[in-house]
């Protein structure tokens, strides 16, 4: 399985990028751009992005462009303008979340569909994979569902690691709240959290020009399941909310495991010693419909 690594602020450091790019396992880098991307830990300006894309190409890696947000009518036109100004080559990819964007760009770029709440069953995944260049299977399925989907639909992309976005609103909820409460806080800062009244979990929230985004409080990961996930050809490592040490460590664990430098139990051991909280996420969840139903 090849790896796609999401660029955060730490991975923009040239010597680090160069070091990890030595791994043949890394196929490319997912980059975020202002006014295009969703849930990206680092949002480049157009000019910054062009320089960084050159760097990625220079390292013989592919660019995966994060265009995962939903676009309203006029914003879609602007998004296309931005994309067309970038120095992507024919081997680069666009990971998109809005099917309208696909309609405008599929003749020109390799389009990968990212819809974690939609790509939740074998049949829909197969259909979309047939239409698009590829798909990223939902991270909102159980591990059994993931195994089934990827066995049936080969060569998909799966999410190996990340912190789930669980709420995506167009409403500027922080901005409006600060106006309502007459506070002078800047809603665009990056250290806000919400905590449900009766619980202790702190969920990071971010507001940007796309809206308000709420995330799970822990990082999910796939590791023990990997021996059963033989057909996906690429694994995506998301790096939002990761600190410097954890970013490098996570990439190293997956790289070393897939390169057979370390065993599964060694990889598990490395992960357990990290300073971040991890869990299995939706891969280990069985949702119920009604309160009266119980989990088997």
């Amino acid at each position: 399985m090849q790896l796609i690594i999401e660029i955060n602020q730490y991975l923009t450091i040239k010597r680090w990028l160069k070091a990890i790019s030595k791994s043949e396992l890394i196929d490319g880098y997912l980059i975020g751009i202002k006014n295009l991307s969703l849930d990206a830990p680092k949002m480049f300006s157009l000019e910054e992005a062009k320089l960084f894309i050159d760097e990625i190409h220079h390292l013989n890696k592919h660019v995966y462009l994060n265009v995962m947000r939903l676009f309203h009518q006029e914003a879609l036109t602007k998004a296309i303008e931005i994309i067309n100004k970038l120095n992507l080559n024919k081997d680069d990819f666009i990971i998109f979340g809005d099917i309208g964007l696909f309609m405008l760009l599929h003749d020109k770029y390799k389009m990968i569909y990212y819809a974690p709440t939609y790509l939740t069953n074998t049949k829909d995944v197969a259909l979309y994979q047939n239409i698009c260049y590829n798909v990223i299977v939902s991270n909102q399925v159980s591990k059994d569902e993931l195994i089934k989907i990827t066995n049936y639909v080969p060569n998909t992309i799966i999410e190996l690691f990340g912190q789930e976005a669980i709420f995506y609103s167009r409403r500027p909820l922080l901005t409006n709240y600060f106006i309502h409460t007459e506070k002078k806080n800047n809603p665009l800062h990056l250290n806000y959290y919400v905590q449900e009244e009766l619980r202790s979990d702190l969920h990071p929230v971010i507001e940007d020009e796309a809206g308000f985004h709420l995330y799970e409080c822990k990082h999910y990961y796939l590791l023990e399941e990997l021996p059963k996930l033989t057909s996906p050809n690429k694994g995506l490592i998301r790096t939002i909310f990761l600190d410097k040490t954890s970013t490098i460590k996570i990439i190293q664990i997956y790289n070393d495991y897939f390169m057979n430098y370390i065993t599964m139990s060694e990889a598990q051991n490395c992960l357990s010693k990290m300073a971040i909280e991890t869990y299995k996420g939706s891969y280990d969840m069985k949702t119920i419909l009604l309160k009266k139903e119980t989990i088997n």
Partner: protein
Amino acid sequence: MNKQIELLAPAGNLEKAKIALMYGADAVYVGGKEYSLRARASNFTMEDLKELAAYAHEQNKKVYVTMNIIPHDEDLDDYNNLCDYLRHLEKIGISAIITSSLFIMKTAKEIVPNLEVHVSTQMSITNSEAIKFYEMMKATRVVLAREVSLNEMALIKANTNLEIEVFIHGGMCASYSGHCVLSNHMTLRDANRGGCAHSCRWNYHLYQGKKKLNAKGHFFNMGSKDLMALKYIPSLIDIGITSLKIEGRMKSAYYLATVVRCYRLFINKYLEKGFITEEEFKWYYEEILKAENRETGCGFYNGIPTINEQLYDTRDETPTKEYVGDVISYNEDNQTVLIAQRNYFMIGDELEFFGPHLHNTSYVVSSMIDAQTKEELTVARHPLQKIYIKVPFKVQTFDMIRKKFND
């Protein structure tokens, strides 16, 4: 004025569906026992759907069935069941399915090509290019995301061939529909398969770093006011929107009757005259408030919502009128109506009768008799108690009765 528009109402059971059609909806959307969101709505058996379709067709109206869950494998494993379900829907006269799954869309077009496919708001369609994709998939109509503004609706409509349906009234998700798994993570209840626990409406503390920002007793709230787009109806008609959708499959029959009737009268008035006066608008607005609405706002119609569209620390679900009874029958000879009590009322109360063909008519109750015991009553206190009341005007079965809340 030569414009048409469909008024589309929700219904959680057969009785409500008939009420919605009776009170002026051109079509209703309902959930079957399978593949539908709103798992807590009663949902319709195939027999219910058949009866409803027949009832609707007698009045030249339509029934749409929701198949709008975002399915997992267990929901789609039985392909034959899906095909049989679709065939049954077509056979009994359902006009369209509303779906979120490309696979269900494709299967429907293959198995029952004459059954229309409408693309659910769960797909969060926000631009005309996305609509072109669904046109390729042979959908007939799309339901736009509730985040689309009125100006954007006009732009979208001008650039698409498909029918456009928009929400005009009712609850709004705080997140883009179909993109929220807050309930899944907070309660293990799958928001995209009918189990949403409305976690966005709970109370939250807000922190910046380790510092709590909300004052004691107050919270950071994400829930939004309900949508009421009454004043935008003329623009929606003029733009060429096909269908105006009311949300609320779990709402009561009284709510449906009140809200549907109000929008029906408003639409008819605008289509007839080409404008609505300020005074007329005020009447329609006050009419809607007689149902049990939450606080309402204009949603995204004017663009990005401000604090006026958010709910903060308040919950207002008190209607201006209380639903007190249903008309069962009326005897013109002795001017006596037989009603079923729905809430407490008493001699001396001013009741307001209303119906699909009955203007609001007020009447002070001066006498009433229990239909079973024949005793004279001073209060109607028992739910569904059958009561005779003399009224000097004609009413019909399925008309409803309400009264002002006591202070």
